Structure formats: structure tokens, C-alpha cells
């Protein structure tokens, strides 16, 4: 009996690994294709797509596409811009949206539920419908900088950051998570004399690891993939993000090798971010798994 069930267990484990490996392969193939193609000249690249050679580093391999990509476009600048805009937006968004959600979840005030309803309702408005009104708005907004008072936010970092900080989805995620925290934890902190800010800082946020990770990943993807908005509000190359930068490679000739090289470069920050978040996510689950 014992051996049969042990065999059974082994078999099931084997099946599970095979399935997981298959899924992993399916997900890895496009990435593999991208990286391998970035190493090949354009004509070989197109020929290889007809066979499995597309996924293998064979034939005329080299880093020419990378040097060409860097000479065609300011790749480093674009990556810097995107990382800056994305990073600042994610941080500000986590902070401000969690603060708003804290108020919705724990404080009592008039009109609270109505306002939360409205904020959640904004989830169904697609960005395309507000892009033009928003453009008109930001083109006239004032700003006080080193040069004094100016009007118009076009061609800046802030025009790519500020409109994206607050959003209904992030607020909603935090509200849901906060409402599931044991109410008595908050009450205990109040009885102990903690101010609302201290409760936010010392009790709620340290327990918010999982929702912070989720919200950060979602926001990161939205921001790093920004295309339409920077396309219409940024005309100067110096503020351009990576996705808009892709245009440089679709001009008279379409240089597929260089495109693949460019894509490989701009994928690196995404992978790095995922690895960091995965760590944070797992450790935060480990520390909050048991509720007091």
C-alpha cells in the first residue's frame, strides 16, 4: 500500500512538473525569440523565423544591432526617462492612494461612501475619452519652477507623472485590503494613544505588504508602457519615454534586428522590477500570514 501511494505521489509530482515546464516554455519563447533575434542581422532574422532556428543563437551572431540601435536613438536617455517617470509615479501613487484609502476605510466623514462610489466608477472610463480634455487642461496649468511662474506643462516630466498618480483602481485595492484588516488592531492602537497618522505609519502600512506589491506592479506596468499620453504631451526628445522611442526604428526601413535589440534593452528594467517585487511579496506574506 505504502509503495503504491508513494509511486502515485511521485507520478503526480512528475506530471505537475511537466505541465509547469510547458507553461514556462510557452511564456519564455517570445522572450527567447526577442533576445536571439537581437543578435542576428535582419535578413537572417527573417529567414530564421520559418524554423526553430529562431530560438537558437546560430548563424551570424553579434552585437551589431545594439551598437546600431544606440547610434540611431538616445536609448539610454529614453530608458532613464521611463524609469524616472515610472519610479516617481509608483512611489507617489502608493503613498497618496493608500492615504486616501485609509481615510475611506477607517475615518468617518460625510459623503465618504458616495465619494468612494464615484472614485470606483471612474474605473470604467477609458483613458482615450479623457485624453484630449486632459491635454487642454495641462497645456494651461501653472507651475512655479526655478524660472518663476510659468503656464503649460507640455514637454516636462511632471506632465507624465502627476496625472497618473491617483487612480481609482489603486485606491480601491487599498480600501479593500484595509477593510479586511482586523478592526480591533486599529482600535487597540487608538486606545494606546496613536494618532491617525501613527496608525497609518506604524500599524496599517507595515501590514500592507501584499497590497503594496500588487498596486506597485500594476502601476509599474501602466507607467512603463505609457505611449499615447507622452506621444501627445511630449514633443522634445529629452523627455521622451521608451515606448515612444520605438518609433525611431520604424522609419524608412524597418530594422528588425535593431528593434529586437532595443526591446531587449527596455525589458531589463521590467525584469529587475519583477524580481525585486517577488522578493518583497513573498517576505511580506510570510510576516503577515498569521493574524494576531
Amino acid at each position, binding site marked *: 500500500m505504502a509503495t503504491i501511494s508513494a509511486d502515485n505521489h511521485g507520478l503526480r509530482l512528475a506530471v505537475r512538473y511537466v505541465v509547469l515546464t510547458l507553461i514556462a516554455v510557452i511564456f519564455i519563447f517570445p522572450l527567447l525569440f526577442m533576445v536571439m533575434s537581437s543578435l542576428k542581422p535582419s535578413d537572417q532574422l527573417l529567414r530564421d523565423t520559418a524554423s526553430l532556428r529562431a530560438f537558437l543563437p546560430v548563424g551570424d551572431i553579434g552585437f551589431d544591432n545594439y551598437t546600431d540601435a544606440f547610434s540611431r536613438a538616445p536609448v539610454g536617455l529614453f530608458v532613464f526617462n521611463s524609469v524616472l517617470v515610472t519610479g516617481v509615479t509608483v512611489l507617489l501613487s502608493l503613498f497618496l492612494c493608500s492615504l486616501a484609502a485609509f481615510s475611506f476605510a477607517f475615518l468617518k466623514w460625510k459623503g465618504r461612501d458616495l465619494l468612494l462610489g464615484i472614485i470606483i466608477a471612474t474605473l470604467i472610463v477609458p483613458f482615450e475619452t479623457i485624453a484630449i480634455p486632459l491635454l487642454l487642461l495641462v497645456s494651461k496649468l501653472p507651475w512655479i519652477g526655478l524660472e518663476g511662474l510659468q503656464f503649460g506643462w507640455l514637454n516636462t516630466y511632471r506632465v507624465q507623472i502627476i496625472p497618473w498618480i491617483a487612480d481609482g483602481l489603486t485606491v480601491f485595492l487599498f480600501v479593500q485590503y484595509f477593510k479586511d484588516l*482586523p478592526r*480591533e488592531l486599529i*482600535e487597540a492602537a*487608538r486606545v494606546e494613544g*496613536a494618532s491617525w497618522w501613527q496608525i497609518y505609519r506604524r500599524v496599517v502600512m507595515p501590514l500592507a505588504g501584499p497590497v503594496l506589491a500588487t498596486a506597485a506592479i500594476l502601476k509599474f506596468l501602466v507607467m512603463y508602457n505609457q505611449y499615447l499620453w507622452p506621444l501627445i504631451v511630449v514633443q522634445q526628445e529629452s523627455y521622451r519615454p521608451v515606448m515612444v522611442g520605438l518609433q525611431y526604428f520604424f522609419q524608412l526601413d524597418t530594422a528588425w534586428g535593431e528593434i529586437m535589440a532595443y526591446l531587449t534593452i527596455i525589458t531589463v528594467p521590467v525584469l529587475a522590477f519583477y524580481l525585486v517585487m517577488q522578493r518583497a511579496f513573498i517576505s511580506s506574506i510570510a*510576516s503577515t500570514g*498569521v493574524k*494576531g
Partner: protein
Amino acid sequence: MADVKLRDIRKSYGATEVIKGVDIDIADGEFVVFVGPSGCGKSTLLRMIAGLEDITAGTLEIDGVRVNDLEPSRRGIAMVFQSYAIFPHMTVRENVAFGLTINKVSKADKEAAVANAARILQMEHLLDRRPSELSGGQRQRVAIGRAIVRDPKVFLFDEPLSNLDAALRMDMRMEIGKLHQDLGASMIYVTHDQVEAMTLADKIVVLKDGQVMQAGAPMDLYHNPANLFVAGFLGAPSMNFIPVSVTEVGPDTVTVSSPSLDAISVPRKGRDFTTGQTATLGVRPQYLRPVGADAGMLHGTVVLTERLGSETVVDVKLANGSKIIAALPQDMVMSPGEAVSFTFAPDQAHAFPE
């Protein structure tokens, strides 16, 4: 340490009133227990004293000061919650010191306070653990420790032992009793366990539907319940209620009888009866003594006996079909269907008008 005064305290959620005018006086250093069935408003009342719920109407005074509108932290109270509510991301030490950290108490004072609480609760060896590495009883200690270090005027406990198993509950009950002796602070303790109430309390407040049914010393309530509800709520097994009719009303006594009960005069205790009305006679199971069939005054037939060795619990059916229980302080053999008679001292019986 301080006294607590509740004057006509009320609480409504929308149109429903859940606390309907409660007056309670808690003396300095007194241990007061709120008991009552589920949903009677014990927690609500406690949370109003803590400041976690608004007081709809009435006055709450702690140490002579009206605190209705004060923040929980400024009322001089500390609270121990049913779910412990200790912070999972902090060590035991950080949990216990939380209130002091918040109030920027100096490091030396903080360490001294934590060490003192840990000593009282015998948890010095746990200070560097996280809550996830503690047992239920140990978590409860941490929650109590957090209350102790604040040196509150009034401790509030909301069913602190209800998540513990029976043996641990008894230990912790004794520890809380001892804590009260050592600290001498006023304590308000909510429970629906009447054993906790009887053993811990200086004063029990019995609540039902948001109203005080009776308040007083445990033995007072046990021996002189003011009404049927209190009579039935305190004591285990609970008091027998025998439907009777009133045959005579004297200045200090009332005489009652029923088909199963020979006429008996019991203390009236100031309650009003009229001859011929129906009433309820209450006798605790422990006060019934079995006697020969023609000697006793309460007659019935045995339904079931439970022999516990030190005690025998007998279920008895009366002539009108109602059931009573007798708890006899010796091992006895009685077979189902057997006719039995009991006697009891009249002054240990309670008559309540319908």
C-alpha cells in the same frame, strides 16, 4: 485608579436603540463584570466606556470628569480585546511598549515598564518573539501586558478568555483575579460565562436587551435575584421554575401551591401578589433534598439520572409535565419511572409574580 459613573447611557444605531438607559456606579478599585446573553449590549457598553463608540445620550464620568467626548487615549483606560489585537509585525516587546513608544516615553522608563509587566505576567522569555510564534494564552498575556504598562485608571476586558481552551481559561481567570489584587485598579470585564462572573467580580451587572436587570455582589445576586431573568441566568445547573398559584398573601410571606407542590409559604421579599394569581416558584437544584414519598412537598417521577460520583443530577417530571432538576450531593441510585419527593427550606425558594 478611579471610579466610573454611567448615567442614563443610551446608544442607538439609526432607529434601533441597543442600550436603553443604563446607570452603573463602579467604585475605585472595584472589579465589575457585565454578563448577559449574546446581543444584550455588553460589548457596546464597554466600547462606549472605552470611547470606541459614540454615546448617543447620557453621561459617562471617569474619575469625576465627564469623558463623553474625549478620545479613547485620553480617558485613562486600557483595553484587552477578545481577539487580543496584538500587532503581528512587532515583537512582544514592541507590542507591550507600543503605547509608550507612541507617547515618546524615554527609553529607560520604557524598558523598566516592559520588564515590570513581563515579570508580572511571567513572560520575560517571550519578549523577543513575534505573535505568530506564541500560543493563544501567551498572546493574551501580551495583550494584558500592553494594558499594564500604560498604568490605566480603568482596565477594560471584552471576553478576553473566550478564545482559550477550558483548562487555560481557568488559569488565566485566576491570573486576572490576581492581577486585580496586585494592581488594585478598577476593572470592567465583559463575559457571558457566569463562572467567570461569579468568581472574579466584586460586582456583577446583569444585562438584557440593553437594560440592567440587576447589579450587586455575586452572592447577593445568587441568593436574592430581583427577577426571573437574573434567577435563571446565574447558577449552574440553572434554577428550577415551578408554575404555581398563589393561595394566600401574608405581610412577609406568600403561600403558593400546585398539583405537584404542597402548599408552602416562602418569603415575599416585597413583591406584590394577589390571591389566585399564577406565579413562578424558583428553587435551585442544589437545595432539593430527596425524602420518603409521603414526607416531601414536591412530587414527581424520575426521568433520568446522571451519576457523577460526587454528585447525582436527577431529571424529574412534575404532574403538569414540566421538568425540574435536582443536584444531590451524594451518589444515589434512582431508576427512571420511580416516584420521588423532595423537600427544601422555604427561605431558599423565590416566588416571582407572573
